[in-house]
């Protein structure tokens, strides 16, 4: 029951915040912080209580038995890191929106509805329930972006939602196919259940059917993970969204897609995964390289981070495509790592820097290293962490993915080469953009505010940075904290793979 509290608390939080008067924005932010922190605390308790391998904390109840739908929740080593990252980003999202006043009650109502949906996806062990939570997480995004967003917010919000629902349509079709085609592995009888537990443990979808169901479900989820060529919602959405929403988008929502790919597409359709893995790897490489190249060309600081997210999600997809323990562990770790670092970068650019400079265009920024030294150094450290600096979690996860790719027999050496190229390009754009943003003098002649120093970070901002950067550092130094939980669960999943 413990884990369910995350979902319940979030939805109650949404209701409470929504019912408070918008003039009480000071009280609302404390309520929001408390709700988010409670969610984080529950995820941490789950993490401490979990001892490896199989699903824990199972809750099973009938929901719509006539359609084979149950209410089944629980978590394992794959969902745990994601629960944690959701909690972390939720807390920091509130901290970085500390000054928000307009329609604050509605903001946090949508915010916590989204977070409740996200927790729900990570905890669902019934395909239908997972889909329901997945869709619950979509609609609030529209309102968060359309109401509180920046330039072109209506367009970006609509685009994001239509892409999301396009993906869910594919998933729903695949889901129905799985329901009707899955048989009991021993008796060959039709299972007719949406329970992920039953489907994974003794279900089997006929091999030929897996060949066409896998791409449906995988692509459906991967759209949300920012897979090329369906990634274009991500940069526009991230850029137009208010800070807290873009933190959630980059930190958590994109992970929903990747989690669905791993848990549902690969977990239920191993034969399909084996057949399609080389193609997934190719797309992942395109994601990594293309994302990095486009990031290099951007003038808007937020777009740089947006495309770097696309690039980093490529590593998650690549890790999944390896279909071996090392690579997939790397994928899950990368989900965590990009979750915290991506959210941090968006927070820094979207709130900390933008609220002071009032511009995000790189060629309008002027020697920020002198004018906001503290913030600049924090940002530099964060982007180096994102680049894969040893000591931070990004390094470990990308290393795992690369080794996994190298070990994988089904993926050719070209893939490893492509990933290597991607890493080089990541170094490239990170350093170039750091230079452009913080060390360069403005190209245009400026009207005299060039020497003004900006105020230092406020307390909530400092705490947010400390939490996110601290967790990236902690996992970078002690990766076994997570890998010890991730690997046994992945091993269980891989055991069920048919021999190649």
């Amino acid at each position: 029951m413990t884990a369910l509290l995350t979902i319940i608390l979030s939805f109650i939080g949404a209701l409470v915040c929504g019912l408070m008067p918008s003039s009480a924005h000071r009280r609302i932010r404390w309520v929001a912080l408390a709700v988010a922190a409670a969610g984080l605390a529950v995820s941490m308790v789950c993490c401490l209580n979990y001892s490896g391998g199989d699903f824990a904390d199972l809750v099973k109840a009938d929901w719509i038995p006539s359609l084979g739908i149950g209410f089944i929740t629980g978590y394992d080593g794959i969902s745990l890191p994601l629960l944690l990252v959701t909690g972390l980003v939720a807390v920091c999202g509130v901290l970085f929106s500390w000054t928000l006043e307009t329609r604050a009650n509605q903001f946090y109502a949508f915010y916590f509805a989204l977070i409740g949906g996200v927790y729900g996806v990570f905890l669902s062990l019934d395909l239908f329930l997972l889909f329901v939570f997945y869709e619950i997480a979509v609609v609030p995004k529209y309102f968060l972006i359309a109401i509180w967003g920046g330039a072109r917010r209506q367009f970006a919000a609509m685009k994001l939602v239509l892409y999301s629902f396009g993906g869910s349509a594919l998933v729903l079709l695949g889901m129905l196919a799985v329901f009707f085609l899955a048989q009991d592995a021993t008796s060959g009888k039709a299972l007719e259940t949406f329970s992920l537990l039953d489907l994974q443990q003794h279900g089997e979808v006929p091999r030929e059917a897996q060949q066409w169901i896998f791409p449906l479900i995988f692509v459906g989820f991967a759209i949300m993970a920012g897979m090329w060529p369906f990634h274009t919602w991500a940069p526009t959405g991230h850029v137009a969204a208010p800070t807290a929403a873009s933190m959630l988008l980059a930190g958590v929502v994109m992970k929903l897609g990747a989690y669905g790919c791993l848990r549902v597409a690969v977990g239920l359709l191993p034969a399909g995964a084996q057949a399609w893995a080389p193609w997934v790897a190719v797309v992942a490489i395109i994601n990594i390289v293309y994302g990095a190249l486009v990031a290099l060309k951007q003038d808007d600081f937020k777009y740089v981070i947006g495309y770097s997210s696309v690039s980093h999600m490529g590593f998650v997809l690549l890790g999944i495509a390896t279909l071996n323990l090392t690579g997939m562990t790397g994928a899950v770790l990368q989900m965590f790592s990009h979750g915290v670092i991506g959210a941090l970068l968006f927070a820094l650019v979207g709130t900390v820097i933008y609220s002071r400079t009032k511009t995000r265009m790189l060629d309008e920024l002027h020697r920020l290293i002198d004018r906001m030294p503290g913030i600049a150094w924090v940002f530099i450290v964060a982007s180096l962490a994102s680049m894969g600096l040893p000591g931070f979690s990004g390094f470990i996860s990308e290393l795992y993915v690369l080794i996994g790719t190298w070990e994988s027999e089904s993926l050719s050496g070209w893939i490893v080469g492509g990933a290597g190229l991607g890493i080089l390009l990541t170094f490239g754009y990170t350093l170039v953009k750091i230079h452009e943003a913080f060390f360069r003098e403005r190209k245009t002649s400026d009207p005299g505010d060039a020497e003004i120093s900006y105020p230092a970070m406020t307390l909530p901002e400092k705490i947010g940075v400390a939490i996110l950067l601290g967790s990236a550092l902690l996992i970078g130094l002690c990766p076994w904290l997570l890998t010890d939980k991730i690997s046994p669960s992945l091993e269980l999943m891989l055991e069920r793979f048919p021999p190649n």
Partner: protein
Amino acid sequence: MDYQQLLLALLPDLLVVVALFAALGVDYSRLRGSRLAKRYEVACQISAAGLIAGLAVLVLQIAGTMPVMDSTADGQLVLNTGTLTLKALLYAMGLGVLPLAKRDHITPQVSEYFALLLLATLGMGFVVTSRNLLGAFVALELVSLSLYAMTVLNQARRASAEAALKYLTFGAVASGFLLFGLSYLYGATGQLDLTQMTGLTDEPVLVLAYLLIFVGLGFKLALAPFHLWAPDVYQNAPTPVAGWIGSGSKIAAAALLIALLQPVVDAPNPKLKEALIPALAALAVLSMVVGNLGALRQTNLKRLLAYSAIANAGYLLVGVVAFSAAGNTSVIFYILVYSLASLGAFGVVAVLTDTLGRDAEINDFNGCWKTTPGLAVAFLIFVLSLAGIPPLAGFLGKFYLFFAAIGAAPEAASWHDGFYWLVAFALIMSVVSLYYYLRVLKAFLVAPADDGAAIAPSKIGWAAGVTLCVLALAVVALGLWPEPLLGLLRN
């Protein structure tokens, strides 16, 4: 025939008829010279009392504490849990229309307005409980004629008269087609009782009969290409009436379609089924395309809801083509939850625009989140349910339709077998539909209040408020906990 039993079985209907005459009588005699507001109030109260009494008896009948006869001669009345539940829900929704109709004093013919509402409700109750070709047809005509008359009630509007004329002519032609189809069906089987028709085969005359029936009911359900009346009628009829056309009459027509197709489902020979599937699938695809693409360009909210109704009728057929018990249950469940949401959406529009004095454009609702937050939230729930977003009932309804369609050929193992293509098409179209639903919600919830808003919130009134609350709660509750209703409908 045991008349005492028949009397008991028809007690709900009798109570409604009594209320109908009471409303007319009181309005004509005692309230002759009274103020309009007073007359509306009294007529509404009497009608409500009748429906509530009828509803109470129906609940007793469903619960089994009051004996009902299983079936009368020739299947004129088939009263089982499923049909009685439908009838009860129709009465309940009819009850919900009353406070909406009371708010806006569109016509001095007060008691006729409410009598027609009750007549339509009565007719719907008969349509869903009758399994006799003639009985069901007459009941459906009772519904249609009441609705034609109600469309034209607002005599101050020329457009209203034009829409009613269009509705009447189209509807009359449709009834002709339906009657033709029914008579061929009777001719081929020699039966009026649908429960007695067994062993249908794919004789050409039967195929023709069903095609004619599809045309006739296609008009009533607003399926493309028989949808042309819908946008005008939805836009120009008084808003509560449009809501009732878009919900109650849809339930009646869909239930009749399912009842008429039941012999095909039960027939041991699947040939007739196979002959009818292409026609139904074509209607489904066409309706989804016309409805969803048509709605994209609408600026008038009620017209947009009309196109959305066309699209939803298309989804409905996805469950019909399954030709299975699950498919039939899914169709009834879907039309119920669709109607709840549609009635709710019209209710919100009615409450917000009855003082506006003209047709409401989508932009008129800008900033409702600030001026009328409760209504905005209710509207959010109704529209998201129409769009099929979980955890609302609309999603489950759609899911069940698709589930039934794929389940019709569960062993189909490749994507080009079974109804995967039809479900895929419906899913793509639901993604398209999201665009226009969100555009409406944008006005209600996103746009700032000073941005061209023309809605001055008037007093909602407790009855209308309660109605909208109950509808919204029903939409949420049926999404979270559909099993009890599904259980009742399966019987």
